[in-house]
């Protein structure tokens, strides 16, 4: 495709235009037809064509479906069965039972809700807080940048999990507060990336050319800067989803996340840690599920990055 395009476009000029139209139009026509007119559909087509993105998307979609369908399964994550305590997988409990005789499958299905929510919502929050602040810092520079950057550095000085624990402890234990805490703790990274990327893009000629075309500052930030800094933010976001799911697990372990008896994969894993020898299935399933979801998000992120970069064919 690019070869045909190259051949045609190098034949420039009013005099060359006629010959290009006549000579190369046979190349150009199928080429143009193959290229979707709108950017969104082009990204979508590329995404579907990439096996990595496809596998990642299917994994994420499957878990999202499980999380959404939890109430329809009729499974009760809190029902105890005294006869099944720490029993291996059986017909009654396909994935085994935990230390209180609760069905691991039921807890896995319901736990998907907490884990996916924690991952996606907290990252969405981190991006929603971090990206605008970072863009503001990178665009305005001066004391605005200094204030935002110093605050960011102060937050980055604390380890991510310690920070999340501090926020969660301050806000009070609940899944919602855990998500807020994780989101706030993850925001500094997005501030840094958005700031650096904005500074890079702000120096580009096309920003100057937008200014010369009379575009206002807000419109330049939204229409010109944002689309050009989005790809690295997106990749970081998919990676952070994985971190956030694990962070929720840690907060749950400390009693700061999902409150018992409601399940989350993280809290299940943390309880299972004490029974690794007696009941390894208690750890196996949540561990495998976290692994699969994280893998899915990472693969989807990789595919998205490639699809969003217009320079890659």
């Amino acid at each position, binding site marked *: 495709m*690019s070869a045909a*395009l*190259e051949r*045609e*476009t*190098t*034949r*420039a*000029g*009013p*005099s*060359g*235009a006629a010959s*290009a*139209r006549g000579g*190369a*139009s046979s190349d*150009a*026509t199928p*080429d*143009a037809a193959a*290229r*979707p*007119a709108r*950017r969104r559909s082009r990204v979508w087509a590329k995404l579907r064509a990439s096996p990595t993105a496809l596998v990642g998307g299917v994994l994420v979609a499957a878990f999202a479906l499980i999380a959404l369908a939890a109430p329809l399964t009729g499974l009760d994550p809190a029902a105890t069965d005294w006869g099944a305590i720490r029993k291996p997988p059986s017909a009654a409990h396909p994935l085994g039972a935990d230390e209180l005789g609760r069905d691991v499958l039921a807890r896995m299905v319901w736990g998907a809700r907490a884990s996916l929510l924690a991952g996606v919502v907290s990252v969405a929050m981190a991006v929603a807080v971090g990206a605008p602040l970072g863009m503001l810092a990178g665009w305005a520079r001066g004391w605005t940048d200094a204030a935002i950057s110093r605050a960011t550095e102060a937050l980055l000085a604390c380890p991510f999990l310690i920070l999340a624990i501090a926020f969660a402890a301050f806000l009070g234990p609940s899944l919602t507060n855990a998500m807020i805490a994780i989101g706030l703790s993850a925001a500094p990274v997005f501030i840094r990336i958005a700031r650096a990327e904005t500074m890079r893009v702000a120096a*580009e*000629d*096309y920003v*100057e*050319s*937008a*200014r*010369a*075309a*009379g*575009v*206002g500052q807000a419109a330049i930030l939204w*229409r*010109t800067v944002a*689309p*050009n800094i989005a790809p690295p933010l997106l990749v970081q976001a998919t990676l952070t989803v994985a971190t956030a799911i694990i962070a929720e697990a840690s907060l749950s372990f400390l009693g700061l996340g999902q409150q018992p008896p409601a399940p989350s994969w993280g809290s299940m894993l943390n309880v299972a840690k004490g029974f690794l020898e007696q009941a390894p299935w208690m750890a196996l399933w949540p561990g495998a599920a976290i692994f699969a979801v994280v893998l899915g998000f990472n693969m989807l992120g990789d595919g998205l990055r490639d699809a969003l970069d*217009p*320079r890659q064919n």
Partner: protein
Amino acid sequence: MNDPVSTGKQWGAQSAGALSRGAGGLSVEGLTVTLGAGGPAVIDAASFAVGPGETLCVVGESGCGKSLTALALMGLLPSPPMRRVAGRALFQGRDLFQLPPAEMRALRGDLIAMIFQEPMTALNPAFTIGDQIAEAARRGGLAPAAANARAREMLGRVGIPDPAARMAAFPHQLSGGMRQRAMIAMALVNDPALVIADEPTTALDVTIQAQVLDLMRALQRESGAALILITHDLGVVAEMASDVAVMYAGRVVEAGPAERVLRDPQHPYTLGLMASTPGLGPAGGRLAAIPGLVPAAEAMPPGCRFAPRCPFAEGACAAAPPPDVEIDGRRVACIRAPLETLAGRAA
């Protein structure tokens, strides 16, 4: 000593009825830009004018203030550190330098458009060229559908084959010449009265250069826009200019009708610039180079800024900046002009 001569043209207040949207030339007087408050003048009292349908070429070597002049006119000086401390720029009866920022912004991309040097980097890589041109048209007040149609029309007018398909091309999918055509389409989409082109052909192959220049000339003929063409290429000047302003170290050293200036340069710098331009045809002798370098902004000589490199310099040249004198229909800032009177003329 001769009296200073003003630019002679006053296009600011005029509005030629034949031309579509209040055409008008630009008349710049005494534009002075300093590096920081009270710092050295990187543009020193530059004056020039261009009428509707005319082309003014601003020439000079790298770092002489050509591009800064363009940015100052657009109100886009990197400030700080640059500060515009004096000058007027009359355009359609208004002084651009006195306009509030919001009004200046409304003029940019509308009545005043700019074409950049690097077509590789001056287009947004995240959007198709159709999107970008249509967006410029929407800023000019067109509805989305009309803006798309206008973008397609402009792509056709700048000689891009199959404009309907090219609308969906991203900048990286086009060759350099095509990108520059797209840039020109974007700049001209709102039918500006004044176009400032900063080295629009420097990044292009020679054959493409000629095509792009032809295109700009044809479009200018259609629209009657005034064109300020910034270049370091005297070949481009000979090709395009109706008037020329030669800049050296932030000063306009010679300005006047292109034909006269090129045929018979009166400033030693213009002379040196022409002598160092390779001609066509079989290689002759060595090209003449102007000895020395452009002085740094912090170390400008107090008198004529060209004096340290000038073969005709005498003691008085270093004493005070030379006043503008009018010789043979052009303005020259040299106390030794006219050069014909000098013995042992170098070129």
